[in-house]
C-alpha cells in the first residue's frame, strides 16, 4: 500500500520567511554606506586593534586562571568539616555574586582612597613591606582583581556541582587504598568532576571575554577601550565597533572550539573514542556557540 507522507506546509512557509528576512537584512547591511565596511575591514587588521585584542585575551586568561584556582579552593572550603571555613566561603560567594562586577572594578580602582598604604607583616609589629596603594593598584591590577575575584564566586558554584556529581563510593574506594585527602581530590574526584565542570567553564570563559570590555571604564587598553580611543578622534564610531565585534566574535569562536576539545578529553572512559571528522566537530561547536549562553546579572 502506498504511504502518503504528512504534509507540513507551514515548515516551508517558515523557511521562506526566514530566507526573505535574512536577504533583506543582508542587502541593507551590505548596501548602507554608513556601515563603512571598508573602514571597518581596515581597522580589523590595524595594529591598535590587534594589540587591544591581545590585551582582552590576556585579561580573559589571567582572570579565568584566578577564577578557576580560587573557585576550586572555595568549592573545597565549602565541603570542609569546619563550620567557620564553610561559612567564610559562603560569605565570599554571597558578596561577590551580590554586587555588580562593574562596581567591583571601580571599587578596586579606587582602593587607594580607602587604604592609601598597604602594609604586609604581623599585626602590632613593624611591617615587613609597605606599599603605596596608588602605585600597586594600577588599572590593570584593579581589573584583574575585580574580574578574577568575581569569577571565583561563580566558578566555586560550578566546581561544587562537579564535586557533588562524583559518587561517594569513589572517595571511599580511594580512602581504603590509603590515599591522602589531597591525592583523592587531585587524582580521583577532580578528574571525574571535570566532565561536569568543563562545559559551564567554557561558557564562563566566553562570557569573561566579553565582560572584560567593562575594564575600559578604568582605562585598561583592552579591545573596546582602544576602539573607543580611536573613534573619539575619528568619529568613525560604527565601523570601529564593527571591527571590534569581528575580533570578539573570532575570539569567542576559537574559544568554543577549544571547549569542545577539552570536553572530549575529559570524557575519557565515559565515551567511545570520537571519530567524527573535524569539519563536523567545528559545526557542532559552532552550534553550541550559537546556543544561548545563560547570562547572569553581574
Amino acid at each position, binding site marked *: 500500500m502506498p504511504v502518503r507522507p504528512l504534509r507540513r506546509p507551514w515548515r516551508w512557509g517558515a523557511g521562506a520567511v526566514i530566507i526573505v528576512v535574512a536577504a533583506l537584512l543582508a542587502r541593507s547591511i551590505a548596501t548602507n554606506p554608513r556601515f563603512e565596511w571598508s573602514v571597518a575591514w581596515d581597522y580589523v587588521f590595524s595594529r591598535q586593534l590587534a594589540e587591544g585584542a591581545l590585551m582582552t585575551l590576556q585579561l580573559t586568561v589571567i582572570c579565568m586562571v584566578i577564577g578557576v584556582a580560587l573557585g576550586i579552593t572555595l568549592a573545597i572550603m565549602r565541603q570542609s568539616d569546619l563550620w567557620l571555613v564553610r561559612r567564610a566561603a559562603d560569605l565570599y560567594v554571597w558578596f561577590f555574586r551580590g554586587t555588580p562586577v562593574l562596581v567591583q572594578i571601580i571599587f578596586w580602582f579606587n582602593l587607594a582612597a580607602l587604604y592609601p598604604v598597604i602594609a604586609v607583616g604581623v599585626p602590632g609589629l613593624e611591617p615587613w613591606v609597605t606599599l603605596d596603594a596608588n602605585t600597586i593598584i594600577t588599572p590593570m591590577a584593579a581589573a584583574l582583581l575585580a574580574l578574577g575575584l568575581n569569577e571565583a564566586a561563580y566558578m566555586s558554584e560550578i566546581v561544587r556541582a562537579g564535586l557533588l556529581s562524583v*559518587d561517594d*563510593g*569513589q572517595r*571511599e*574506594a*580511594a*580512602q*581504603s*587504598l*590509603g*590515599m*591522602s*585527602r589531597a*591525592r583523592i581530590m587531585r*587524582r*580521583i574526584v577532580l*578528574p*571525574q568532576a571535570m566532565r561536569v565542570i568543563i562545559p559551564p567553564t567554557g561558557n564562563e570563559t566566553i562570557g569573561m571575554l566579553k565582560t572584560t570590555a567593562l575594564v575600559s571604564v578604568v582605562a585598561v587598553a583592552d579591545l573596546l577601550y582602544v576602539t573607543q580611543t580611536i573613534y573619539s578622534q575619528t568619529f568613525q564610531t560604527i565601523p570601529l565597533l564593527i571591527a571590534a565585534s569581528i575580533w570578539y566574535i573570532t575570539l569567542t569562536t576559537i574559544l568554543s572550539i577549544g571547549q569542545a576539545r577539552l570536553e572530549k578529553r575529559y570524557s*575519557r*572512559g*565515559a565515551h567511545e573514542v570520537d571519530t567524527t571528522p573535524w569539519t563536523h566537530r567545528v559545526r557542532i561547536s559552532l552550534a553550541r556557540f550559537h546556543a544561548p549562553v545563560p547570562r547572569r546579572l553581574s
Partner: protein
Amino acid sequence: MNVHTPLILAEGVYKRFGRTEVLRGIDLAVAPGEVCCIIGPSGSGKSTLLRCVNHLEKIQAGRIWVDGQMVGYADHGDHLQELPDREVQRRRAQIGMVFQRFNLFPHMTALENVVEGPIGVSRRPRAEAEEHARWLLERVGLAEKANAYPRHLSGGQQQRVAIARALAMRPRAMLFDEPTSALDPELVGEVLTVMKALAAEGMTMMVVTHEVSFAREVADTVVFMDEGQIVEHGPARDVIIDPQSPRTREFLTRVS
C-alpha cells in the same frame, strides 16, 4: 605475633549515627588466615562494622586492633591518642576493601586502577607496580582486559579488577562488603571463584555476604548479626547447619 593471636580483634565496639545505634557492643576475633563470613538482615550493621575496621567510620566506644595495631588510635597507657591522618592512611593501606558496587575509578583503565595505590600511596616504581598489577589481573582472569575502561567490563569483571586493585597493596587482610550482591546471577560464580582461591592461599578475610552456600563452603567462621549485635558466632557448619538462636534460624530459612 604468633598464629594464635587474632589478626582482627574488636572489643566492645559501639557506633551510632546521631541517635541510631548501629553497633551495640561488638566483640569479634578473626585469626590470621581465617575466612569470617558475616550474615544478617539489612540494616543490622554489617557494612558499618567493616567500615569501622578500616577506620572509614569512627567508633564511639570500644577498640579494634588489626595486626596488633589499634585502629585509629595510639594507646598511651592512660589515654588514647587519635592518630594523625597520615598514620590512619598508612594503616588503611594494609587492609584491602571490596565494595558491593565495585567503585572502580571510571576514568582509569583496569591496569591504571590497580597501580594507582602502589604508585601513589606505596611509592613503588611504575615498572614494578605494573608488572605486579598484570600478574594480579592474570590471577583474576583478566590479563587481556588491562587496558579496558571499567564501563567496557561486565559487573563480574569489574569486581575482579576491584579485587586485584585491593590486592595490589599487598594487604594483611581483605574486607568484602556484599561483593556479589550487585551482580547478575550468572556472574556471581566468577567472583566467588577468585575469592575462594584467595581464601585457599591463606588470606585473612571478612566477608559480608548473602551467599549462604559460599559461607558454608569457604568460611571458617560465620557471624550472624542483628540490630547491631552479634547474635551467633561459630564454626561455619555449626552456624549454618545447626543454628542455636531462633533469629539465626529464621534468617537462614528466609535467605536460602
